[in-house]
């Protein structure tokens, strides 16, 4: 099946040795954040949603955020997204 993110990974000239298999994260217009490869929620509130990924935690700050969809590997966050940070 065609996967847009896999196509990008294959076609871009990426330096050797970089690990691109952890997770994918797409921010659409600051209002929708699509995440593939999450490993579980850490916090959930309207202002902050954080979740585990391989080798770290992603913290999403924003306003009126809701978790639009949550499945085993993917999640979608809707709302005003101010900041996406990996720690």
């Amino acid at each position, binding site marked *: 099946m065609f996967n847009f993110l896999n196509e990008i990974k294959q076609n871009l000239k990426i330096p050797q040795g970089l690990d691109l298999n952890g997770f994918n994260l797409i921010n659409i217009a600051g209002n929708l954040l699509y995440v593939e490869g999450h490993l*579980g*929620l*850490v*916090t*959930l*509130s*309207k202002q902050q949603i954080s979740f585990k990924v391989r080798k770290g935690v992603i913290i999403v700050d924003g306003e009126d955020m*809701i*978790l*639009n*969809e*949550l*499945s*085993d590997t993917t999640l979608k966050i809707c709302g005003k997204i101010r900041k996406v940070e990996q720690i």
Partner: protein
Amino acid sequence: MKLKNVSKFHICGLNQEKLLNELCTNFTLFEIERVSKNDTFFECSYFDHKKIQKIIKSHRVKIESVSHSGVVPKVMQTLSSYGLMLAILVCGVLYFFQNQYVVQYQVLGTENLSKSEIVSFVKGEFSSKKSEIDTTQIENALIDHFARISFVSCIIKGQTLVLNIKEKLLPTQMYGEFPPLMAQKDGKVTKIELVSGTLRVKVGDIVRKGDVLVEPYTLDASGQLKKVEAKAEILAEVYFEGTAEHYETFVQTFRTGEKRVQSEVLLFGLSIYNFQQEVPFQRYETETEFQNLSKNLFLPFKMKKTMFYELAQETIVSKFEDVEDETVAKAKADAEQKMDSGGEVVDEFYTVRHIGGVTFVNYCIVMEESLCEQPS
């Protein structure tokens, strides 16, 4: 109503992230909204809601509410309404049982036969259960039992048994008791066109109203009398006569214009007050009128008014020659009043007779008209 089958949970408790992480390993959750530290709303597929409920309970998180939307939840809710289902079932059973029986009988086309007699016969002889009814049998039985029925058709429409009956014609209705053709007016026969029957008049005969014109039978070669409908077109000169009289001398009485009034108040027919003017006239005529003085029925006072009009007499002398045209016109108008609408005026004339100071004018209008109305 949403078509998507969705269950919406409202949960309340601590450490909800852990619960959500566990849930999302097996189910997809939607619209997860944390409204406060302990309260979260989320949606899931309706078909997963029971499993999710079980998992939530195992985490000792309180479920505040669960609501469902979509077609399947509505259907399931209806099916779980036992009262409604029972009512539908009972109605269905009742409908099924009563639908097997004829509950109404409809009889059409009877004029002389009694509908109730036919219905009671059918009810008595045949079952009302539809599966046991043979419409052909009913038709045959009705024809056998009722001599007056010539044709009957029977159908079952819904829960009604419809009997369409045609009654036999009686001999008199079949062959007819024909009346003779009679003259409707006085006249002189001018033209005859016989269609059927035996003529009793000929051209030139003078007939009076009520005379028989055509008899309702014919005689065949063997002398046998055969009843037929009397039918003919008979035209005749019909006379319409009007009269007017003229008196050379006559006394005319007229009101002079003088009058007197006498009033009387009545209660239950008894006079309780009266006012009577003296009547000085030698000749007079009176007019009386009653008037209600009160509108209630307790004391129905009435006013009786009697008017006395003075009369005078005058002797008028006139010669017939002076008013001949006027008198003839009066006689003609009288004759025209008696005329029917149809027909063609053939001739008109008048005669004048003088007898002892009185002149009689007879005006006659001759028309050609049909003497008789044809039976329809």
